[in-house]
């Protein structure tokens, strides 16, 4: 059985991009602030369109923002 892990660098990227707030990122990507908080905390895996939106907002490839690791247990 495989267990998947999705990690992200959103917090780091926010601070590297003029220290934009969670609310600003939420407004730019068309979601609520709670969703950005949940994604940052790794509690919610965003849809592919939202993941692309977030990556494009930072001007980086999607792999820079999200990392997927599959662990076999």
């Amino acid at each position, binding site marked *: 059985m495989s267990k998947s892990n999705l990690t992200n660098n959103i917090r780091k990227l926010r601070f590297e991009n003029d220290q934009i707030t969670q609310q600003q990122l939420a407004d730019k990507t068309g979601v*609520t602030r*709670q969703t950005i908080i949940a994604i940052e905390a790794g509690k919610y895996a965003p849809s592919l369109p939202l993941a692309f939106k977030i990556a494009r907002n930072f001007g980086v490839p999607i792999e820079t923002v999200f990392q997927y690791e599959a662990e076999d247990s």
Partner: protein
Amino acid sequence: MNKVQRETWIALLLVVPVWAIFGQLPVLLIYLEGPSFLHLFAFACATIIGGLSWMLLLFFNRKWKRKAKIEFDERDKLTLIRSTLAGYIMLWIYFIAACIYVWLTASPDRSISVNLMPIVIVEGIAVFIFVQSVTTLIQYGRVGKNVEK
């Protein structure tokens, strides 16, 4: 707290009690005192008020309208789909349990009270809204961690 959470708290604290309590009072009165126009009218009013209690959500949403540009997104949609499914499953289990209860408690001549039907239906609605609300709130979890002030 976002729009969905606000609506869920209102449903849990206001809509569920309206259905569960006020929907049953007329049935209890009919059971104790026998059917009369006044009791049946009260039951009709209670169910209409219960059905219209969703209007409270519109009222509170207007009152607590925030400046946030986006109030509903894909995560809220997913949360509502899951909680509605949980509510539906629980409603189904409730109806099965109600049927078993009726079969087991039916009188020797296999007849049941006519008061059971409105009780089962109205409480079923209350069960559905209660489970949907609780599972919605559980999915959102505690707000506070990773929040920037």
